[in-house]
């Protein structure tokens, strides 16, 4: 299961890539593997604010609909509209072309609770 160094992770298998005040958010390889072939992604509205662990997006495979929670507190500045017609990008490359949205971080402290890649790998071992 691919885990990328330099990203931050949640126990719900979201990742966040922090650059300055912006966090790019997606779901991890483990999550996409569990969900199977994705067929629909509901993206958040730009400008909307989310607290930590709020329902940010919904990803649906042919078998289940799953919530994607915001790993950090922030306001949506950009969404990956490509996912509207190509939800499979998340299956193909969840850490790059399969990103879901960008958040302007409103509470930097919310980053502290996230795991680094090593901690996330250890966490995966326990599952």
């Amino acid at each position: 299961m691919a885990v990328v160094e330099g990203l931050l992770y949640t126990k719900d298998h979201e990742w966040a890539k922090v650059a300055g005040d912006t966090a790019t958010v997606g779901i991890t390889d483990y999550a996409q593997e569990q969900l199977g072939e994705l067929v629909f992604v509901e993206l958040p509205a730009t400008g909307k604010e989310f607290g930590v662990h709020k329902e940010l997006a919904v990803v649906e495979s042919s078998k289940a609909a799953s919530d994607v929670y915001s790993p950090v507190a922030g306001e949506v500045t950009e969404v990956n509209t490509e996912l509207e017609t190509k939800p499979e990008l998340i299956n193909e490359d969840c850490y790059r072309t399969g990103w879901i949205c960008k958040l302007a971080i409103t509470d930097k402290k919310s980053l502290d609770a996230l795991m680094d890649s090593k901690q996330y790998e250890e966490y995966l071992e326990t599952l």
Partner: protein
Amino acid sequence: MQGSTSTGEFVFEAVEADPVSSVLYDEHVKLTSKSRIAAFAGYLMPLWYSSIAEEHRAVRERAGLFDCTHMGVLEVSGDEAAGFLDAVTTNEVGGLKVGRARYSYILDAAGNVLDDIIIYRRGEDNFMVVVNAANEPKIQSYLRGLLAGRIVIETGRADRKLGLHPTIRDMRAGDRSADRRVDIALQGPATIDTLAKLADDASLAECVAGLKSFAFVEGRLAGIDSLICRTGYTGAKIGVELFVDPEHAATLWNRILEAGKPLGVLPCGLGARDSLRIEAGLPLYGHELGGKLRISPFAAGYGWAVKLGKEFFIGKAAMARVATTYDMEVARLELPATRGVRPVRPHDAVLGEDGRCVGWVLSAAKVQEQQYALAYVDRAAAGAGKVLGVYYLARSASQVEQGRKQAVEKGQKLAADLAGTVVSRFAKY
């Protein structure tokens, strides 16, 4: 708690237990990651190996191999076996020929479906009864309760008792000396060619090729004593269920995959099993049959398997009423699944032409560019060719905030999110 209430309803509360490994678990972990193995009906079963879509396609175009060893397999034997099965199931058993199988239902006295089953007649006095994994403890308890007189059934006769005492045996358990059986299914057009490579003699291969639907033969595949039955749960015109000793199940599983490899045979998980049966219109107990909606065999599209002309079967009086009064039924819907179309899901509302809710989705699956839904709808709305709408229920907190409903009652008027067409109730591929 368990027992029969004054209304004839059979109450059974399953004991919560940790899931156990299927007989083929060691083979599954060689073929797929542990993260794709999940608890289902008390067993750890593979969800998929390659992908649901690929495995689905394999069954339609070539063949797929399924672990069905979780299915309950009971033997009902003794000179009162046929009479007993005729009394406790809805279809006709006495007239069933040896070497043939029949689909049937077990009901309680109130007419609730306890399970849908297949009865295989192996001899005049010897039947193999295959029951759903999730229902197996309940059915064993029910049948044994009837035999022991713990559950008393009003038969309309003076003695008020069933008075039939066959022997019931769990065929998946027992020691090596017993005739033990677990189910492995090979489904799809390449089934016969794959089995021909494994049949111990040419005459068996020929016999299997000529088997009619719901007929079976006993013979040796890869040296393993097998019951080869032309039954299945995929809607494939050609397919078999193989019943073998649990000790040899892994060997046969591997030999089939080996022999089938050049023919494109793939191992298939629960995901494809579900999408195949939905596409074919086959009901799953608890979804299109029984369950909270108490869907009857008539509403499920199987009125023919309830023989109201039989002198007696448990639940007959209730079935006679249902047969003339049921007003909703299961319909198969075809909907688009092109890119960007949200999949329909159980409980989504089905809308009539005027936008009023006429029922709900029970199960749905994506099959290439289509999605198929089995829905419970007003009979008047269910004719093939009719266009029905679907309203997606809220699937996230933000959708609820935006006013999307979390449940829809019949008659409520809504705007459809997606339109689909009612197609024939069943399909064979």
